[in-house]
């Protein structure tokens, strides 16, 4: 009884490692920029945010203002967007039992793209996040309805096919709109390629409730994803309601993705690379993959944003370009090393 084997799951050292990587990414994301700040001072200022901690950072008022008013909001936004996309990707991969699933599988990207295009074409630029959010959720709802109508059992492949159909349809509508409003093409494309805004804490407070709610639901259900890996039929004999679990998880992951996309545009590859790297480190259990994906996804996006801001300074690269530039070669590697990808 004393030395029972340990089941797969989250190991404390992985969690500690994830937090350490994330902390380093946050410091790097804040320290580097047009005005360089000493990383040690940044770390001290960050720790000062914890109630009861008073460290001497050696930074002046202006530098502290740069941290709290400019860089910290953007870094936190990157953290939230990256962790949401990675969590949603990992969640979809489990729900669809397909290691190539990504957060945009069910039409979120096409829906958000269309929503943003409509907002820009209507000259309602302030409403782009709202339109993108609404478009993303409407697209997923449509995919689910279509997938459910096509297959009585809402099998996963029916849903994936429905997602492809909806995505193509919405992309066609978007292309048509762009043709009719060709003056907006540049603006729409710069939104599509992804960018994190630098205007304070607005976007962070906008998506924080969705991020928190979705993460809570997905993390609470993470063991069910492990059970679902034996298929719906067997999961049912183990006491689960597979269709119900899948619906709840898809709603939560889609909300997270829609919120992330609404404020950042379409940032690709985070949702597929990060869960895969985590899987290589921590094994196939979603109990480890999901929480670690959040940490590493946040860290990855902060660093990608750092490159986007600094590589071609003073102009900014779209962050989607950076993640895809790093992600595409990695994706090929994953494709070559993944032995089986089951639908």
């Amino acid at each position, binding site marked *: 009884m004393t030395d029972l084997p340990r*089941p*797969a799951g989250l190991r404390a050292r992985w969690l500690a490692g994830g937090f350490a990587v994330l902390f380093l990414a946050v410091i790097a994301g804040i320290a580097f920029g047009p005005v360089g700040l000493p990383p040690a001072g940044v770390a001290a200022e960050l720790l000062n945010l914890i109630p009861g901690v008073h460290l001497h950072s050696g930074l002046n008022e202006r530098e502290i203002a740069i941290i709290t008013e400019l860089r910290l909001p953007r870094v936190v936004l990157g953290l939230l967007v990256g962790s949401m996309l990675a969590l949603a990707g990992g969640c979809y991969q489990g729900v669809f039992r397909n290691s190539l699933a990504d957060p945009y599988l069910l039409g979120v990207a096409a829906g958000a793209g269309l929503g943003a295009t409509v907002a820009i074409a209507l000259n309602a630029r302030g409403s782009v996040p709202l339109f993108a959010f609404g478009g993303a959720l409407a697209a997923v709802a449509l995919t689910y309805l279509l997938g459910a109508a096509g297959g009585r059992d809402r099998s996963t492949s029916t849903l994936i096919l429905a997602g492809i159909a909806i995505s193509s349809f919405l992309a066609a509508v978007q292309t048509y709109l762009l043709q009719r409003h060709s003056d907006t093409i540049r603006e729409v494309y710069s939104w599509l390629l992804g960018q994190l805004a630098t205007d304070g804490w607005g976007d962070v407070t906008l998506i924080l409730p969705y991020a928190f709610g979705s993460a809570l639901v997905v993390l609470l259900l993470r063991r069910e994803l492990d059970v679902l*890996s*034996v298929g719906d039929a*067997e999961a049912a004999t*183990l*006491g689960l309601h597979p269709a119900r679990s899948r619906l709840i998880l898809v709603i939560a992951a889609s909300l997270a993705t829609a919120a992330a996309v609404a404020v950042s545009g379409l940032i690709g590859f985070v949702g597929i690379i990060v869960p895969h790297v985590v899987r290589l480190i921590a094994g196939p259990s979603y*109990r480890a993959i999901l929480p670690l994906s959040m940490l590493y996804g946040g860290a990855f996006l902060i660093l990608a944003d750092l490159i986007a801001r600094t590589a071609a300074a003073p102009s900014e690269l779209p962050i989607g370009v950076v993640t895809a530039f790093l992600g595409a070669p990695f994706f090929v590697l994953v494709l070559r090393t993944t032995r089986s990808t089951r639908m």
Partner: protein
Amino acid sequence: MLRLGQFTVDIDGHRIVDGVDLVVPAGEWVTVIGPNGAGKSTLLRAVGGELPFTGVLELDGVRAHDLRRRDRALRVASVAQNPVVPAGMAVFDYVLLGRTPHMGFLGRESTADLAVTTEVLTRLDLERFARRTLATLSGGERQRVFLARALAQEAPLLLLDEPTSALDIGHQQEVLELVDELRRADGLTVLATMHDLAVAGEYADRLVLLDGGRTVAAGTPAEVLTEEIIGRHYRATVRVFPGAHGPLVVPARPGPRSGLDQGNHPNLGP
């Protein structure tokens, strides 16, 4: 104890199982036989909770419709015909999935869950595979792992859908002997389906023959496995010989044997 009354399963508007009545007392082994498409697997899957049904399904006197999924999983454990092998999952974690209905809302396994899993692995001589992934095991080893997951569920009723169809004759016997041992030791009730009639007769207390979704014969192996009944429902010519545990069914070609060695097999000749 399992009781089915007018148990009926429809799939896509087709009646696959049609009004089956069956009682399996606690501790008994009943095997459902029948030709392809008779509804054997469908019957088992509906009893296991994978498919909806009409009619009566009672588990230990409680109607299955009144049970929540989880409570039902505490009463019935299934080994599917072709279980899904999750990529990269270790044997220990796979067997631990059997403890799912015992776990609380947060899905954290208790010490008892780990202890039961370890015990089942030991009992089925699988300890040395605990850290291996399922994909690296042979067919016979994997079948034992599937069985281990169902046993870890600690349900009194065990459903086995063609548990040995992928195994050679030696591993078939090994797995079925194991099930029989466990059944006697733990008082498990077993409801199985099988293709091989000789093997079915050797291991079951009673057989139920389905054809076209209906029960066409039921009783002890000696009562069900007759040349006449098998001939009628399987459209096969067989010879049935008495064996130590049950009748031995041997397929035999109809008509006289042609060729030079005709008459060299007096036992099988017409």
